[in-house]
């Protein structure tokens, strides 16, 4: 559609300078040095506890501190939970931001905040997904710095996450459908995992598909739409790309997990999340710029072997009988494997791995011996491309209840991701009311390597 972009020439003619917007466009062209080529965003839906993972408070009272002990890690002065022994050995690759903070207590609004870097209009438990809301990070990347290597810029899988209703910021929103992620809802842990979209229909040979395409091209020559209508040409280019993806191509190969040795697949763990992380490595290796892996489709927390990190202890469950058997072991198998694999392939310095949830959990252990939602202070883990290893940013108070220094809002973390990818965090996108909207807050320069 024809969308007006307002060119701002507010002034600044005083030096013969160009207008602010134009100048900003120039700033964007003066590239920020990318510190990583790709991001793997491992979204821990449900909200992991900071106190039981990366911000242990062993000196806090027993009503607060984790039943687990902290252990030393490969990074000086950084301790992590004893149930993450393998992760501990890779902390020299990681930056921990222990002062993530915001005020959204509900999964939907906090999830939206975490996935978009923009504060939601209200703390709504069923925040409705609409085109007024911001796009996913990957869609912004596809809008401002799309791939030109034939690979999709943004791939997301293996779920659409929801809590009663679909969580916003999993797609391109007002940036337009063409910036939506390549969304994969098949289970990478499934024996027959493949993309239906990337497979020819059963019984249709490649030859036949080419013949169909040739016939289509012949018909298209008659009406000449391709000669004079850019929209039609744009549509036709998608056929070109799609057929490339179907018939040969790096995309198809990248999704082919059977190309991995059994030992590698085992190392990642035969879980949906484990195989998803393996797939993420294959995708960035093939040149995908932004990969979002959702830990689970639901907030979970009531069953072992299923769901996310939302362990309140409802329905007579107990947090410490779930996370120790499910979320933490999976994490400790997968994350270190991913980091090792990336490192061994020389990809780690070009790939930023982000591990975080939408919020943390209450310092005070509740009457169900579990923890509830706590957005005021939680931890995000960054590893690899562009960030310092063995580094802690910010300090939480003695109960990990509030940031004691250097609080970080989700928009600042967003700015940091964009900065690392070489995208100016001050870049603007326009919503449907022509409002110029800055994509990020203030990047955390101190975490950059």
């Amino acid at each position, binding site marked *: *559609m024809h969308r007006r972009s307002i060119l701002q020439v507010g002034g600044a003619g005083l030096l013969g300078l160009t207008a602010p917007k134009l100048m900003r466009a120039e700033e964007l062209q003066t590239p920020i040095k990318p510190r990583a080529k790709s991001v793997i965003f491992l979204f821990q839906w449900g909200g992991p506890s900071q106190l039981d993972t990366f911000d242990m408070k062993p000196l806090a009272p027993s009503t607060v501190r984790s039943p687990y002990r902290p252990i030393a890690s490969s990074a000086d002065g950084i301790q992590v939970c004893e149930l993450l022994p393998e992760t501990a050995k890779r902390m020299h690759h990681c930056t921990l931001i222990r002062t993530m903070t915001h005020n959204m207590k509900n999964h939907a609004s906090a999830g939206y905040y975490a996935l978009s870097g923009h504060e939601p209009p209200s703390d709504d438990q069923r925040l409705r997904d609409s085109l007024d809301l911001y796009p996913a990070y990957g869609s912004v990347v596809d809008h401002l710095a799309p791939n030109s290597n034939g690979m999709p810029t943004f791939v997301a899988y293996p779920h659409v996450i929801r809590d009663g209703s679909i969580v916003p910021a999993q797609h391109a929103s007002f940036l337009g459908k063409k910036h939506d992620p390549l969304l994969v809802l098949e289970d990478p842990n499934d024996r027959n995992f493949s993309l239906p979209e990337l497979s020819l229909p059963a019984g249709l040979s490649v030859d036949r598909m080419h013949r169909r395409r040739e016939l289509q091209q012949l018909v298209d020559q008659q009406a000449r739409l391709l000669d004079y209508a850019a*929209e*039609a040409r744009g549509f036709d280019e998608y056929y070109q790309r799609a057929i490339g993806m179907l018939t040969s191509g790096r995309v198809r190969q990248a999704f082919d997990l059977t190309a991995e040795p059994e030992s590698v697949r085992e190392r990642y763990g035969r879980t949906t999340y484990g195989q998803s992380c393996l797939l993420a490595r294959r995708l960035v290796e093939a040149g995908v710029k932004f990969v979002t892996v959702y830990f689970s489709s639901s907030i979970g927390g009531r069953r072992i072997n299923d769901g996310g990190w939302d362990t309140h202890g409802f329905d007579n469950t107990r947090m410490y009988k779930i996370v120790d058997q499910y979320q933490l072991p999976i994490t400790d198998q997968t994350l270190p494997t991913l980091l090792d694999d990336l490192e061994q392939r020389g990809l780690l310095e070009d790939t930023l791995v982000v591990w975080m949830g939408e919020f943390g959990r209450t310092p005070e252990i509740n009457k169900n011996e579990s923890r509830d939602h706590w957005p005021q202070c939680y931890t995000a883990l960054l590893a690899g491309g562009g960030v310092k290893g063995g580094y802690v940013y910010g300090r939480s108070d003695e109960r990990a209840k509030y940031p004691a220094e250097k609080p970080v809002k989700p928009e600042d973390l967003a700015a940091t991701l964009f900065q690392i990818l070489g995208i100016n965090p001050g870049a603007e996108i326009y919503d449907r009311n022509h409002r110029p909207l800055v994509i990020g807050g203030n990047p955390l320069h101190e975490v950059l390597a």
Partner: protein
Amino acid sequence: MHRLLLQTICVTMCLGPVVLAEEVVLAETAVEFSVDVMSILSKSGCNMGTCHGNLNGKGGFKLSLRGQDPYFDYQSLVHAARGRRINLTAPEESLILKKATGAVSHRGGVRMSAASAEYQQLVQWIQQGTQGPSPHAPRVKQLVVSPADAVIPAPLDSAQVLVTAIFENGAKRNVTERACYELSNLKAQVSPSGRVTRSDFGETTLIVRYLDEQVAVPLAFTTGEKITWQEPQAANFIDRHVNAKLRRLMIPPSPICDDSVFIRRVYLDATGRLPTADEAKTFVEDPNTNKRQEAVDRLLATPAFADYWALKFADMLRTEEKVLDVQGVEVFHAWIRENIRRDTPLDQFVRELITGTGSTFEQPAANFYRANRDPATRGETAARLFLGTRLQCAKCHNHPFDRWTQEDYYQWSNLFSQLDYEVGENKRRDRLDKNEFVGDQIVLVAKQDEVRNPTTGKVAIPKFLGGPQLDANSDADRRQALAVWLTDPGNELFVQSQANFIWYQLMGQGLVDPIDDFRMTNPATNPALLEALADHFVESNFSVRKLVRTIMLSRTYQRASEPLPSNASDTTCYSHVQIRRLPAEVLLDMQSDFLGAPAEFVGYPEGIRAVQIPGVQRVRPRDKAPKAGDRFLKTFGKPPRIMACDCERSNETNLQQVLSLLGAGLDERLTQSPRLEELSQGQLSDSQVIEQLYWSALSRSPSTSEFEAAHALLRDPKLSRQAAIQDLAWALLNAKEFVFRR
């Protein structure tokens, strides 16, 4: 030489005499904050939304957005931060100047040089003791931009505007260097001193802003090609206005489209359907010279017209199950459709929506308020749908591109504050979802809290947008008065926005575009035509059908989409028809008709057409998996109807759509098509089969090369006849002329 001279003369004539501003210089001694300093802040871009004009300011320094509030800005500059931004003893050392010149680090970059007049004036202002806004400061009464509009033919490639501010005290000042300039698109660039230079041929609008005043200047860069103008024929007033503009810009229109394109176009626009092979063929072969008009009249009387146009209104009225309940959606949709069928005058239809009350299951119009549940949302929705106006910006601050103030916003909202709901037992399936309502509810007028302006804290006296105030103390239902005021034929915004909506549906681009963005700084591309359309709409008693008919009978509507070399760059004058991807529902129904098998949707009986679906999602995906038809609609952009805005519908194309057309989804439909099966088993010859497929899919005969290719395919011994027919059908369903309306 001669040609150049001619063009120069033309420009001068088009521009009109360039009036040099009479310079009555204001007292130069004292720098006036609200005129001089404020205009510098704007010119330097300091107070833009992305800089210090941001809601939260920038770097601890906040200015009012685009200089709306001189008093606030004065406080910020002079007193806030303990006055550290100003240095009275050494004015040049003032932080604001050092930041602006880049002498100290400034995230916003260098905004002015120390040699500039602006810098000097700021220094002077500080030297004079940083006087604040004076109540006696001259106020700008009017901004005069010369030329007021212009056509600039190549080889000329730029135009300079002259901006004169006329103050209330009669003083005039040339503010060309101090005004701010913006362009509506990328067809040109504008320099800080008001010179607009062509980047591409076509039209652009220059918006000139100085203090509180804004003026829009339409500019057209034309190729300047020497053509002998041949006045195009006109079927009605639409053509006369379009032709007048084309002539002014010397853009020749494309010819009228051929019959097969026409019949397809009117079927799709009127009914969202394709003509059958027989219908198309009969029309094309009919020698009757009046056949186009007859076809239009016939189609507008069909039930399919009501189906298809109800969809457009249902989109914008948020006909959606989560809020309205499945039953509410059915009731509301049926009512909308019935009104279209009866051709209820649109003003009456809107009055019923605005004044709707009662049980939402029994009084369909009440669903308008069931969907829009608070005064602010109701106000925004009513403004957007019925006045073509976006008010959202004014919720937090005065609208930066329009005349609406924050007070206007809340006064308008307060017209909608008397409503309440009797929800009864809400059997929502998700008890945590406060957006979900199951079961009936009653919309009633009850005394509610008055809306207050959050900035002043005072009750916003109910007031029509750009109209008179209401008596706030009256107990009368404010919506009754509103409905009368809103739909008055003299309410230009109402009549024009509604006529523009219908124009947009048929032409693909509003005369004001986007259609919900009427404002002074976004003028109509053809104001005379918009006025004439609006008048016509009033004269025909707000009949949607009559307006559709008038547009369809114009030669403008009937032009070919293929541009001429001399009009290819035109996107605003309707010299040729813009092609566009067909809506999700239409595309799916076209496939179904062609294949002879309906698509399936969860929760609906077999056979329902996609355009007839009243809502969005009758059955939640968690209760029952969506079917192929549902998935197709989502992929191709059926709107979720959460916003009352046509913009929610996406007619974009993307990779996922193509993957679904190449993949199993469409392939299954092809292999299971009874229609294709019949053709492959039946008695028809190859040639007849080919003819039949082409006419049903594309409303035309195959060309010789297409015919030969299809024949070769059908005769291919390595391929079954069935498979060959499927392949041909696939190619036709994926042809651009199938997917796009041209």
